[in-house]
């Protein structure tokens, strides 16, 4: 499942948790780890100068500098690199982070992209304002492979996948996510928790819901889950299905904690709204910053 992992990293603390998970996965699943770093966008129009994401200094991104950065990264991950042996590579690119990560994902065709919640300083530099949406959002939206995000330290103490929560909203993208979750659960012999949250926030429904309505919705949701997913896992036994009511991101996080999940899988919706943010994106973003385990994002275009 994880022959090739692409770790998109700023090689700073911001990405430490993501890096730890990526290295651990590489070790456990004998993956080739591609450590990928983006130097940033040229600051002077067509010049060679970039603001280094790491040092925030203006530098000339020539071969010499790139070689130096690679060495720096090697040094930064020296101890973690023991886990991979020689089975790794370091790549450095110039450009806007999300675009270059996507480009690398396209060229290297990894099975998984791992990234931190933030690519470091680049996120708060002024140019971000013109490129709406976080780097993660934009990568998750367009990548043809699953994207794993780790932001919290708590999410990175991890000993392999065994309990997977799939949050579904019954969309087409969620179906893709389900397929992937099932495949993963089969391959790694995990327990699968299918979960749906009925959104009762007044905002979502436009009115305060009566308790009867809520319960009816929960019943419908469970029925839908059963009819939609059970036929698809004929010879797979270790699954559980649940529907809770509340604020989706809160419920998913709570549910994952209760089930001691070590992975949450969610669908990333392709359609963007005005800000470049997918509607489900906000739920996903919220889960990411709250979950005690890595979150895996899947969009419709992820190959089976």
């Amino acid at each position, binding site marked *: 499942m994880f022959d090739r992992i692409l770790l998109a990293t700023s090689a700073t603390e911001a990405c430490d948790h993501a890096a730890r998970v990526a290295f651990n996965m590489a070790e456990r699943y004998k993956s080739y780890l591609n450590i990928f770093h983006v130097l940033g966008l040229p600051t*002077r129009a*067509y010049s060679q100068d970039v603001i280094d994401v790491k040092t925030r200094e203006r530098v000339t991104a020539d071969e010499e500098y790139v070689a130096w950065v690679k060495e720096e990264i090697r040094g930064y991950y020296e101890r973690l690199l023991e886990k991979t042996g020689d089975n790794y590579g370091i790549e450095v690119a110039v450009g806007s982070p999300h675009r270059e990560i996507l480009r690398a994902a396209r060229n290297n065709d990894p099975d998984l992209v791992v990234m931190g919640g933030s690519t470091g300083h680049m996120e708060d530099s002024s140019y971000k304002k013109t490129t709406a949406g976080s780097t993660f959002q934009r990568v998750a939206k367009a990548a043809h492979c699953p994207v794993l995000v780790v932001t919290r330290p708590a999410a990175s103490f991890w000993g392999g996948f065994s309990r997977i929560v799939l949050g579904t909203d019954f969309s087409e993208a969620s179906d893709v996510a389900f397929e992937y979750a099932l495949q993963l659960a089969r391959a790694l012999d995990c327990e699968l928790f299918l979960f749906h949250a009925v959104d009762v926030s007044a905002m979502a429904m436009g009115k305060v819901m009566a308790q009867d309505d809520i319960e009816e919705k929960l019943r419908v949701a469970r029925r839908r889950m059963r009819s939609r997913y059970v036929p698809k896992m004929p010879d797979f036994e270790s699954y559980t299905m649940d529907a809770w009511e509340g604020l989706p991101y809160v419920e998913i996080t709570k549910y994952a904690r209760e089930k001691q999940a070590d992975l949450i899988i969610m669908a990333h919706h392709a359609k963007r709204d005005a800000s470049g943010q997918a509607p489900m994106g906000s739920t996903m973003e919220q889960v990411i910053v709250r979950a005690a385990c890595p979150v895996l994002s899947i969009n419709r275009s992820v190959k089976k």
Partner: protein
Amino acid sequence: MPEGTLCNKQPVDTEEQLKALLADKGGQIYYEEMKHLDVDVEMLRQTLGKSLKSRLRTWLSMCARCGMCADSCFFYRINDRDPKQVPAYKIQSTLGEIVRKNGNVDNAFMHMAMETAWAKCTCCNRCAMYCPHGIDVGVMISYLRGLLYQQGFVPWEMKVGAGMHRVYRAQMDVTPEDFVDTFEWMVEEYEEDYPGLNVPVDKDDADILYTVNAREVKHYPEDLAEAAILFNIAGENWTVPSKGWELTSLAMFAGDWEACRLQVESVYDAMDRLKPKRMVGTECGHAHRATVVEGPYWAGRPDGLPPVESIHYVEWVAEALRTGKLKIDPEKRIKEPVTIQDSCNYIRNHGLRDVTREIMSYIVEPGYFIDMAPNGEHNYCCGGGGGFNGIGLYRPQRNKALITKRDQIMHTGASLVIAPCHNCWDAIRDLEEEYQIGIRWSFLKPLLIDMVVVPEHMKPKE
């Protein structure tokens, strides 16, 4: 050592030379070598004899030295009214001197001239509007750049840029394959959102031939997708050429007229090959100037026009909005104070002022659009034109030059600046980075994408 290995009178013509030049970090060796570069007086004289004709000669000699152009130049205004920044002084002390001394100038003089030509003038041509005699110092500085380039006294990035055009027919190392591949990739990435999205490459007889800025391909490929989306929504019969897609010309900034010709001919060849009805170029000011306004002359076209009618992106947008090909959802119009940067290269120098105002009338909620003062043909340069943005050596001067635009923007109170020009966009980005005045800036395309009505057949099913 008169001729350096990197800094010399030879243009960059091969990939190896280009790589060697690029390997010289920030042009350190290059500029060191320039200190010893000889001036070829004979060549200078011959060039003057061949190309300095009555228009420029008369300008130089008739200048009343009245100083009426002083205030028109933003360099003069922001540099505490330094008399050395008066347009007439800048040209008289450089080109004027060269002519008076009949080419007998030395290395130190050429260094001074280089700084004047690239760090004290962006060739925005504003002064031409303020001189009673109609003397266009911007045009003369551009001519001076040609002389300096020929003698090897040109900022490193300019030599690199001109070399890129010579080697790749693009301002960056983007090959035709890269271009087509990136465009297709982008369309692929967005076709989920816009079913049916496609990019027709090398289609004959299309209504629109679309050309771009290599930087979009390299660093902002979303721009390509956005262009495709808007053409598709508008139902245009469009295409991109696999060769001859680069609209820009750093060679123009560099004063490398031969490279200018090679570059623009590659685009005209695409026109001849594919026979489109029109060409639409991306949101770039100098690129439009190069390919549409000046290009025909480099290519020796007596009618002064490109082979097919060629328009700037803003003209296409205005037309599409006017004819209803693109419809704006009134709910989604811009409802925040917004202003527009009038790019010298197609506003002052190609008469498109009203076109951009027309676009504003469609996409901005009435009452939210605020013009800068002055504006239109009289607008100041963003501060980074004419290659200034890209030259490391003159970065401090450039940052200072941004102050004019910063203050102009601040006076409008706008929180969003629309900049349908790559150079202006860059300069405004940089001024926000440098001075943090809390603005956002944008090309037209992403704004349009957010507010345009998507026809049913292009909406994702689900």
